[in-house]
């Protein structure tokens, strides 16, 4: 081959606008992976995304597809509404840990249990980003936040919730996986999980959720590269990576 070839460029499903995310925030990485998968599957023109309340509330400004802005925690209910009346559309929600694992716990558990055929991208950075670094349901034991200034005390507020494990216990067939966005190898693995999650929906198979361990350099108070290392050293031991549930393995009887 002799001509100039583009090896990597921005996916079509992502607009060419700067995001509001802080430098080194892996929200952008997650956005890109989703957009690449949407392009790869050729579904951009029939995709409806659902933005959460949280740092990603403005996600609709960055994706190049139809979008709804959901109330805090209710994105799975929105997605249920869209998908039930228009099963031909591809629907995904994009939710943070406060949104999905705290205020929206009811909605996500029941949507998963009904086997709603949409895709959930769950960003777990162990902290409330938008409101300024408060304790999340996924904040690690001992981790300092503005509402647990001495570190999360599990005797007072319990242990962090492992959402993927929790959802994987449901009997209804589903795809549940946890990836991480802190280093290239893991980012590529996360993309495979996301692609699988969307493919299950395209094939009208099952509910799919991909949890993505993410960094919040600003509220963790560390530079982006240190944040990536902190994630690897602290989050991954508590939130192990991999596929937790495949629809093929589910007991369907």
């Amino acid at each position, binding site marked *: 081959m002799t001509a100039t070839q583009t090896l990597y460029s921005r996916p079509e499903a992502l607009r060419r606008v700067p995001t509001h995310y802080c430098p080194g925030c892996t929200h952008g990485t997650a956005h890109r992976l989703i957009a690449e998968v949407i392009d790869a599957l050729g579904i*951009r*023109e*029939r*995709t*409806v995304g*659902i*933005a959460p309340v949280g740092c990603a*509330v*403005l996600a*609709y400004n960055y*994706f*190049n*597809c*139809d*979008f*709804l*802005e*959901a*109330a805090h925690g*209710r994105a*799975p*209910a*929105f*997605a*249920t*509404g*869209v*998908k*039930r*009346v*228009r099963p031909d*559309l591809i629907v995904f929600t994009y939710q943070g840990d406060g949104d999905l694992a705290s205020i929206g716990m*009811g*909605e996500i*558990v*029941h949507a998963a249990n009904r086997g709603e055929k949409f895709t959930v991208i769950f960003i777990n950075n162990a902290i409330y980003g938008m409101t300024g670094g408060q304790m999340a349901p996924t904040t690690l034991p001992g981790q300092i936040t503005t509402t647990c200034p001495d570190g999360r005390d599990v005797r007072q507020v319990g242990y962090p919730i492992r959402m993927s494990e929790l959802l994987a216990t449901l009997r209804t067939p589903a795809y549940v996986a946890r990836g991480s966005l802190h280093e290239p190898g893991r980012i590529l693995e996360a993309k495979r999980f996301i692609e699988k999650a969307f493919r299950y929906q395209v094939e009208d198979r099952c509910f799919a959720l991909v949890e993505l361990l993410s960094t919040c350099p600003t509220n963790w108070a560390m530079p982006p590269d240190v944040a990536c290392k902190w994630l690897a050293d602290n989050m991954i031991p508590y939130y192990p990576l991999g596929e937790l549930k495949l629809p093929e393995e589910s007991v369907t009887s």
Partner: protein
Amino acid sequence: MKGAEAIGEAAIRAGASAYFCYPITPQTEVAEYLAKRMPQVGGVFLQGESEVAVANMLFGAAATGKRVFTSTSSPGFSLMAEAMSYIAGAELPVVFINVMRCGPGLGGVLAAQGDYWQATRNSGHGDYRCPVLAPCSVQEAAELTVQAFDLAEKYRNPVILLADGMIGQMMEPVSLDSLTPGVPSEKPWATTGCRGRDPNIIKSLYLDPHVLEKMNLRLSAKYRRMVDEEVQVELYNQRDRLDLLVVAYGTMARICKTAIDILGEEGLHLALVRPISLFPFPAAAVHAAARHATRVVTVELSQGQMVEDVDLALRELGPSEFFGRSGGVVPTPDEVAGAFRRLAKGACQ
């Protein structure tokens, strides 16, 4: 048909393609009816995990441009208030049916009209209004249900049908053939996949205060248009000279009519103004009728909510007297007639 069934069937005739619900007495018959009927017409029936989820499912489903609705009762309606704010802010057409029960708190399951303020002001947060329609018969419940869908689409706004347990349970013959829903309009704003167009975004967040104010001004102009165009009222027994003017809506208006008839046989002249639209409130009709009356009484199955709108409408003629029962106690026509008799005779002295 029972009121609850008539509402469900009217919604289907109006082209509703999805109904989301959570069971709550005294309107669960709507859900039970639609659980059977929606699959027959190829529509969506889904029982959600809570009223919170249900109302948000409505947002998602309405965003695709389909006609969608739910029914609930007072405590459930409160839980839906969050989503109603978002639906109003995002300008989506959704019909909410609230079959009121007693409150406050868990209250009881019997008939009441204690959610007037909640429905006519706004149920959730922020600066929004919804048209509120209050039927007083099964036929009217069916007709107003159809109207609610058309209004919701006309204004891209939530519309509330406010009934009580009596209306929901009442059995009356219904003519469904007379229902004439409007033709669903084109919805270029709907999120249906961006094939051949730029992406649609349905949201209510505008960070720039000036942009957000502009949106609020635009919405407020829309609510004023409702006030100009959507007033509905029934006048009963109007005369040039009245001993007493009665203002009541829903079930209470039916009881008042009997009371008015009873007193008519005694030679007392009473008339009724029955608001059918609670928002917009038929203030002009109330004021016009009150000019012929020596006294006005507002009657409610509550301790007095609509009476404030009546007082506002009466302006220099006011204020209104009030008679109300609550807690699920429905007064008999004789009890109401007794109260009217005292007021009417008191006015003559």
